[in-house]
């Protein structure tokens, strides 16, 4: 253990004071015991703007220890300003090791993706959540949404999805697609693409969700049913991509569009940059991965 002392950093370990951590830890324990239920907590100011995932950062700060290995992703990438800042924040305040490799991480904080590499039992996935309440846009009053959750009355949610079908011929929601957890609570998975929803179902990892501005923590324990809401005649489906990743030739993964020039040239590449780089390191080559684009330089 090489945890920095407060005297060295000017902060407590992992920034938060012990009383705040205890309060967050109590909320996490309740969240685990009541899968999908949003536990209120007294969110603290963090030295970063709300849009940067202060809820996720507080959850990570409450769980992380000196022996953890932390990975932080933003839209699948380890290299955005947001991901780099959060990684540095914990390297500095908690002295933890960091990694970009999914398989090496014990704690993964994420904004808007679930890694393509399957998670394992020793891992905790911490989601940054902007809007935790799946019923918020249907019913703005907190007292009412709480009542609807208490009654497990999710009719509004189904009406909304069915209106999608009436208007578009299919369910148009592609991000933050609502799920039912352990047969009881309907939950927002955070703005991940619905492509990632099946990865939440019976994952061996513990999944924790932190919403800073909205002051909510919720959880999905390992091996817990997570079912995307759908209808018999309109079953839930994930996005499909016509071509494999242009760099690593992976199929069955979530791809981002990359514009190549102003003449309409574009390619589709893995949104999970670590997954893509690992495949290229292993010798996989997509149609745009000539010698000009070796692994690690995408």
């Amino acid at each position, binding site marked *: *253990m090489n*945890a920095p002392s407060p005297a060295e950093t000017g902060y*407590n*370990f992992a920034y938060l004071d*012990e*009383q705040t*951590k*205890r*309060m967050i*830890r*109590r*909320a*996490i*324990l*309740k*969240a*685990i*015991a*009541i*899968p999908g*239920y949003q*536990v*209120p907590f007294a969110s603290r100011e963090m030295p970063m703007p709300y849009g940067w995932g202060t809820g996720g950062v507080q959850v990570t700060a*409450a*769980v*992380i*220890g*000196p022996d953890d290995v932390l990975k932080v992703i933003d839209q699948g990438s380890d290299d955005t300003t947001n991901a780099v800042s959060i990684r540095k924040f914990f390297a500095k305040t908690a002295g933890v090791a960091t990694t970009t490799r999914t398989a090496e991480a014990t704690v993964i904080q994420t904004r808007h993706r679930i890694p393509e590499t399957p998670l394992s*039992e020793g891992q905790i996935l911490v989601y940054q959540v902007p809007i935790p309440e799946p019923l918020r846009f249907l019913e703005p009053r907190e007292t009412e949404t*709480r*009542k609807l*959750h*208490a*009654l497990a009355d999710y009719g509004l949610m189904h009406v909304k999805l069915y209106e999608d079908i009436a208007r578009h011929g299919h369910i148009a929601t592609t991000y933050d697609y609502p799920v039912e957890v*352990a047969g*009881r*609570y309907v939950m927002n998975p955070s703005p991940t693409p619905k492509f990632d929803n099946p990865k939440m179902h*019976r994952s*061996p990892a*513990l999944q924790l969700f932190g919403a800073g501005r909205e002051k909510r923590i919720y*959880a999905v*324990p*390992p*091996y*817990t*049913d997570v079912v995307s809401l759908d209808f018999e005649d309109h079953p839930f489906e994930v996005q499909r991509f016509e071509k494999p990743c242009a760099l690593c030739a992976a199929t069955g993964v979530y791809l981002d569009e990359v514009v190549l020039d102003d003449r309409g040239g574009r390619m589709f590449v893995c949104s999970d940059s670590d997954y893509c780089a690992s495949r290229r390191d292993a010798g996989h080559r997509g149609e745009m991965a000539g010698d000009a684009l070796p692994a690690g330089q995408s």
Partner: protein
Amino acid sequence: MLDVASTGFADPVLDAQAQFRALADALARPGSLRAFTPRLTPPVGFPAALASIALTVADHETAIWLDPAFAADPGIAVWLAFHSGARTTSDPSEAAFAFVADIRAMPPLAAFGLGDEAYPDRSTTLVIAVESLAEEGALVLSGPGIETDRRLGVTPWPEGFSAQFAANRALFPRGVDLILAAQGVIAALPRTTRIREA
């Protein structure tokens, strides 16, 4: 009065973190055994695992209920107040955490805080000292956190306790959660767990 030989955590920050992770892991994987080796010296008569859990999760914002055996030793409440700031309550339904020396003599689970439908998190977590926990035992557990099913042995496991726990399960999302602690090891039974006796 405060037992002069007693101490709190050797390292309040890192010990609390390590103990919390063991607790979270235990609740996330019901019935799995977690090594639990607290680094503190509680008053004689208050098991170190229970003392350690108290310092990890309790403070002036949480009320603690002590069962009659623990309440009989005023040194325990004094130690808890001194090291955690938590006050004790005589009403089990008011307690955020309940510490139980004897599972055979405790009030029914329904006497503790069960939360309400809108706020099921406002419930009691029971921390119960038991003689032993074993991976191969008479209880067959299933539910969230368990891949298929998991065996657990708890000694003692009073007659009728499985039925009481099933009644607690039926209240979901209301209900209490249990943390069982033996020498050097803990296991948890959250309200989601189904228990069958093999």
